[in-house]
């Protein structure tokens, strides 16, 4: 569950990235967060992952109140969310299996648990035959699937995908979105940050549009509607 309550973020340089944003995302929802460059999307993600603190207002993620969170509690909070990035952010010298297993190592999973869970998740994202490959031996779409597998492997309550299709062609982008929709159908909350309106419009999901740090549209009627308004 995500709860933003009148959140403002002003950077040290003085620019106001978020200006009193209030939004609420329930468990199990699939949400698109859209907006032009500089609208505040990245700031929202950084607040959700506790890389930044809000200047004012309250941010709650999976029960953690982030404006009050202690530094040592941040890793535990981050384990309740799986983050997917446009540039995949895989560890280059680890195989696909080890990249995914790494997230389980962090929570102290046993080798037996890892050997059972990782192949299952790789199968879920369609990479069961790529386990021993290194990231640079895979296509962009496959690398993004590894990132999704890594985000999923600890069964997080929520997946946050930051421009997950930004480096992919339309066919691969659609496949990734379908995969995220499948993950959502299994009960995981999914938030996709994107500015690809065609992709957004192919799915009938909740779309939150932001611009200049404010929510300007929040509804089921899609990104395209927002652009016309």
């Amino acid at each position: 569950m995500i709860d933003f309550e009148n959140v403002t973020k002003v950077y040290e340089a003085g620019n106001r990235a978020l200006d009193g944003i209030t939004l609420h995302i329930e468990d199990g929802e699939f949400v698109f967060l859209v907006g032009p460059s500089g609208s505040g999307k990245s700031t929202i993600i950084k607040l959700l992952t506790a890389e930044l603190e809000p200047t004012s207002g309250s941010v709650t993620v999976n029960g953690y109140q982030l404006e009050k969170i202690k530094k040592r509690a941040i890793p535990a909070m981050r384990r309740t969310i799986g983050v997917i990035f446009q540039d995949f952010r895989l560890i280059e010298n680890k195989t696909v299996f080890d990249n995914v297993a790494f997230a389980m190592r962090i929570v102290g999973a046993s080798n037996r648990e890892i050997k059972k869970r990782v192949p299952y998740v790789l199968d879920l994202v369609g990479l069961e035959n790529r386990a021993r490959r290194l990231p640079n031996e895979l296509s962009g779409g496959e690398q993004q699937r590894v990132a999704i597998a890594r985000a999923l492997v600890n069964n997080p309550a929520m997946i946050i995908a930051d421009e997950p299709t930004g480096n992919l062609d339309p066919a691969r982008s659609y496949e990734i979105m379908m995969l995220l929709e499948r993950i959502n159908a299994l009960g995981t909350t999914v938030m996709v940050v994107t500015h690809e309106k065609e992709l957004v419009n192919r799915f009938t999901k909740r779309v939150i549009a932001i611009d200049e740090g404010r929510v300007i549209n929040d509804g089921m009627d899609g990104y395209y509607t927002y652009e016309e308004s």
Partner: protein
Amino acid sequence: MTEWMGTILMKRARKLGYLFKEGVHNMFSHGFMSFAAICVTVACLVIIGSFSMIVYNMQLMVQDLEQRNRILVYIDENYNTAEAKSVGSQINLVNNVQQAVFQSRTEAMERFVAQQGGGEAYAGIDASTFRDRFIVTLEDNALTQQTVDALRQIKGVADIAARSEIAEGFTTLQRILNIGSVAIIVVLLVVSLFMISNTIKLAMYDRREEIGIMKIIGATNRFIRFPYFVEGFLIGVISGAVAFFLEWGVYDLLTNRLMRADSVGLLSSLVPFKQVLWVVAIAFGVTGLLVGIIGSVMSIRRFLDV
């Protein structure tokens, strides 16, 4: 409760085992940077080690020369041998006297003749020309003048031959060596630490993205830091060991060559490496470890603040 604690301990042990393996793996997977860090550390340790060995040898040589700088205490010529010998007990009571060895007039004459290469020119020389004397070795050459003054007060002491300016020269030389060597070693150590920490920093900078990924997927700082600690430990141990054997080989080679070239015995007091083997091993081991561990753990600190 016990079962719960057992599970926690199991998890920790598993993590530790994994992290140790990660540290070893990291060192090899970032082979070039590890190699660079080891090379710089070895070079610095060998430079500091060699300089320290040179200084140590020089100090020993100065001490040896100091030992050879003795003073002669001449006994009143009216004293017979037994009376002259008895003055020795008072000489030994004087502060700073390490040893006083009696030499009779006859012995002094024989020694003199021998030093002159014998020959007939000295055939008729009489022992009474010489005086009974004590050859006195001092504990601290810096106090030569005070000791000479004290010796003059002893009844039966007729004269004293002491080269206090030479003794003072040795003391000054030793002081300069001590201060100079400490200063140079400190400078070398600071420069080495700077070079080593920069090399390790460079290696860590290479991995800032990797650390960022670990942080964002929920790794604790301790989890991230431990493999770097292991890596630093290994780099330190390897560097210390390589530097130690290199130092040993180079030192032995050089001292052997120098001793062979030294026809006048000036370098007879060069310390064999085996005599300082443990000191060098411990010094290199500890320095290598400290530099490796502190260097790697400190270097990743700024990347952990994500």
